[in-house]
C-alpha cells in the first residue's frame, strides 16, 4: 500500500483512489460503511483520468 499509492501518485493518479482495509466477514455494517465512504471520496474526486482516456481511444 505504502509503495503502490506513491507509485500511482508518481504516475499522476490520485492516491486517494487506492484504499485497502481489512474487514471481517462478520462485520457487514463496517464493510458497507467503508464502501460508502470510499464512494463519497471518489465522487468528490470525479471521474478517473484513466477512464477519460479509454473513452477517447474507443472513438479513434
Amino acid at each position, binding site marked *: 500500500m*505504502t*509503495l*503502490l499509492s*506513491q*507509485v*500511482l*501518485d*508518481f*504516475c*499522476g*493518479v*490520485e492516491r486517494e483512489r487506492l484504499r485497502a482495509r481489512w474487514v471481517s466477514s462478520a462485520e457487514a455494517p463496517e464493510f458497507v460503511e467503508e464502501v460508502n465512504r470510499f464512494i463519497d471520496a471518489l465522487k468528490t474526486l470525479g471521474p478517473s*483520468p*484513466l477512464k477519460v*482516456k479509454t473513452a477517447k*481511444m474507443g472513438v479513434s
Partner: protein
Amino acid sequence: MIDMVKQKIEALFKEKKIAGFLGLREQNGQVAPHLFMEGQALEGLCLGDRKIAGDARYPLNKILVTLARQYPEKTLGILARGCDERGLYGLFRLNQLDPDRVIPVGIACPGDLALACECKKPFPDALAAGEKIQAGESVKAGLETLAAMDTLDLDKRFSFWKNQFSKCVKCYGCRDICPMCFCKDCSLECEDLVSKGDLPVDIPVFHLTRAMHMADRCVDCGLCDEACPADIPLRLLYKKTAQIMDIEFGFTSGINKDERSPLSMMGPAPKKVAK
C-alpha cells in the same frame, strides 16, 4: 585490466574452484556471453568494451540462473561489474542462486561509463581488476530527473506517463533483458490479467505491475532502458520505486550481501535506520 582478469580466472580453474566461467567472448567482431570451460583457453575473452567501455553489456546473471537450475551442483565463476554484483546479491536473497556456488570476478567501471549509467556503485566488492571510483555527479543527475518529476503537478505527471506507456509495443524486452526477472510464470503473460495481442497495453497497469515487482529487486543496471525499442523511461519509474523503498523502509536492493527485503517480512514496516 583484461590480463588481471584472465590470471584470476586461470587461478580459479587451477585450484579447481570453478567448473566453468561465464563471461563475454568476442568472435567475428561480435560480443556475446560465453561459458568458458576448464581446459579451454580463455580465447576471445573480453570485458564488454568494444568502441567504448561497457558498450556490450549482457545480463550474465540471468544466464547464470538458467545454468544453476540445470547444474545445481556446479560452482561457476562469473564476470561481474558493480551492477552485476548487486544483482547477484539480490538473487542470493531471493534463493535463485547459492552464494557458495558462485564466484564473481569483479571489474570496476571507468568514470565515463559510471557517469553515463548514473551508477551509484560502479565497482563490485569482489574486485579483481580496475579502480574503485565514485561517480559523484551522476548520482545528482539521476535524482534531478526524479526531482524534476516531483515539481510537475499531478495532471502533468499523468499525461507524461500516459504518453510514455502508450508507446509500449509489448515486446517484453524489459522483462527478457532484466537480470532480476526469473519467475517461471510471469504475471504479465497471465491471460486473465493481460489480454494477448491487444495494444496499447492496459495503462498504467501493465507497467506498474512490473514496477511493483521490481520494487525490492531492481538494482538500477539500466539494461531495460537500453533495451526498450520505444524509449520508455523505465529506469526513471524503477528509480522512483527504489526511492520509495529507501525513504519508507531504508532498503536498497543489492547493496548488502545479507540484505532482507521489507516486502517479504511479516509484521509492522521496518523503520528507516539512520545512516
